[in-house]
């Protein structure tokens, strides 16, 4: 298990290095000079910046500076080009927690909902609950999240006007009620996908020989369901959870914009629009590292549930 974890971590570091390199190359292909903006900088500042990032040196040198600045334990992503006196590190530190909470809640909703609804459809196979849920699943998978975001807001507006006061805020950030709708909207697509997966997985497990053994042992249906069926059926769901975290994170950019949430995703989109080089590079590398880390966490979690992975 320890060797396995170390191997995964090493592979993760290499992946992050790839992401960083790709970002660096991509940024150099973007036309335009970061220092020749509408707000032109003075020659003095220009000199300073050129020295700091080695902009007057060959590209390989710039690349090395870029890598060295990012090295743990104290990566320095530099200073924003468009926001005065703001370090990219601070932008991440201030706004990432918001995105992380939103994302984690979304993952939680989608995993809990996926397992629950998937199990329900399997229990009520081919009966009304199954048919209704599976219809919703198709909607959830095929409708893009900004549509759900708009619908969600519309729903809240209606609920609030019905109540006569603001029961659940339509947008913004601050309290737990603020988080409910955006995280639900964000997790919906993944929830639909997981529901479908869980259903198939449950139906596969029901026909396994060990379920027959469990019945021959005289166990109650409830015990068989929880102790033998569920745990085995969840395994395939967990494998896709890692990649789905990436889906949810990128989906977060849109949801943060629609719900006016001060998350990192919003700053990322802004930075791209304004060609804020340091912010783009910093957040991209940071997001990349975060996603790689999450996938590793999910893999390790999988190891705890599936002994076959753990012991090898």
């Amino acid at each position, binding site marked *: 298990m320890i060797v396995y974890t170390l191997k995964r971590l090493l592979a993760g570091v290499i992946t992050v290095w790839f992401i960083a390199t790709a970002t660096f190359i991509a940024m150099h292909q973007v036309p335009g000079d970061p220092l020749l903006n509408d707000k032109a900088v003075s020659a003095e500042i220009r000199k300073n910046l050129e020295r700091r990032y080695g902009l007057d040196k060959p590209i390989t040198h710039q690349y090395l500076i870029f890598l060295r600045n990012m090295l743990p334990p104290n990566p320095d992503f530099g200073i924003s080009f468009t926001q005065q006196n703001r370090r990219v590190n601070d932008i991440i530190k201030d706004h990432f927690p918001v995105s992380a909470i939103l994302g984690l809640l979304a993952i939680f909703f989608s995993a809990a909902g996926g397992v629950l609804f998937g199990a329900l459809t399997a229990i009520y196979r081919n009966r009304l609950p199954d048919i209704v849920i599976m219809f919703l699943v198709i909607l959830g998978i095929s409708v893009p999240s900004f549509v759900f975001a708009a619908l969600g807001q519309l729903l809240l507006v209606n609920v609030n006007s019905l109540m006569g006061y603001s029961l659940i805020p339509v947008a913004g950030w601050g309290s737990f009620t603020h988080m409910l709708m955006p995280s639900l909207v964000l997790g919906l697509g993944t929830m639909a996908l997981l529901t479908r997966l869980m259903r198939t997985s449950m139906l596969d497990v029901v026909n396994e*020989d*060990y379920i027959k053994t469990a019945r021959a*042992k*005289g166990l109650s249906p409830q015990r068989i369901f929880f102790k033998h069926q569920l745990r085995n059926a969840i395994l395939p769901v967990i494998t896709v959870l890692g990649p789905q975290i990436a889906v949810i994170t990128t989906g977060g950019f849109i949801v943060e914009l629609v719900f006016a949430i001060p998350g990192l995703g919003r700053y990322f989109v802004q930075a791209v629009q304004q060609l804020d080089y340091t912010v783009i590079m910093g957040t991209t590398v940071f997001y990349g590292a975060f996603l790689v880390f999450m996938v590793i966490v999910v893999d390790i979690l999988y190891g705890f549930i599936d002994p*076959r992975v753990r012991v090898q």
Partner: protein
Amino acid sequence: MSENILEVTDLSVEFTTYGGTVKAVRDVSFNVERGKTLAIVGESGCGKSVTVQSIMGLTPTPPGKITSGSAKLNGREILGLPTREANQFRGVEIGMIFQDPMTSLNPTMTIGDQIAETLMVHRGKSRRDAFNQAVELLARTHIPEATKRAKQYPFEFSGGMLQRAMIAQSLACGPAILIADEPTTALDVTIQAQILEIMLELQRTENMSIILITHDLAVVARIADNVAVMYAGEIIESGSVDDIFYQSAHPYTVGLRSAMPSNTGDRDKQLLPIAGSPPDLFSPPKGCGYYARCPYAMEACHESAPDPYTLTEGHIARCWLHHDDAPPTDVIHRVTR
């Protein structure tokens, strides 16, 4: 005479499928004596598994349906009980093991926990007590280093070891009957012998009855006391192992024996496969099920199904050749009149 611990009478089971109704088991009757082994033999698809699974309440309903019959365990009816009541004898009075030990245990639960589970559920033991007893049970099936093994998962076991663990699990509550549905088919030959040896040993020490389903007549000859031969959903002959082997009273039994290799006698003796295939269970013939393949078939066999004839006490065969009007024959053992 020894007492019957399980009496099955006229058990019939059907499956409703898109293609029609499969009459998988028809009017099957047999008894299991205390401490004895009953072997059920017959070719693939003849209804052996469905028979025992119906008794255990394991056939899926629907599509399955028990259309008639009774099964009395110590005089108590156990056929078609609701789950809650069935769970009072399943795993307690009757234990069961299956053909493929590799897939018959939960892959994400330790062997020890799976055995302990039975004891916790049926005997109300604490997890710790149950686990300790699970270790003892594993040791009784001669699994080396049982303490360590109990903490392992099925994928860390070999097939033979898993089948031992399955046996240990089914023994947990000291059942009166162990049902073994082809317990050695998926294992290689040397392991097969070991598993059978363990079953026999436990049968002696626990005075347990065994219902053994198998294709292997050599195994039957070695460990069975009584035999039921199934064909196309029916028991066509049943009796003591000597009756079946030395006084076969049904052409199908005779055919099975000639298809069986033996290491005594003539080495050059040809094995004779039985030509043809069993009848369609969607619409079983109105006459004898073996008619199409039977070398001794007569007109009457096609017309109506043969009655069961009792040759000697406990030796029964369903074949018209035992009828008074049937022509004399020396291929099968006849009713002595």
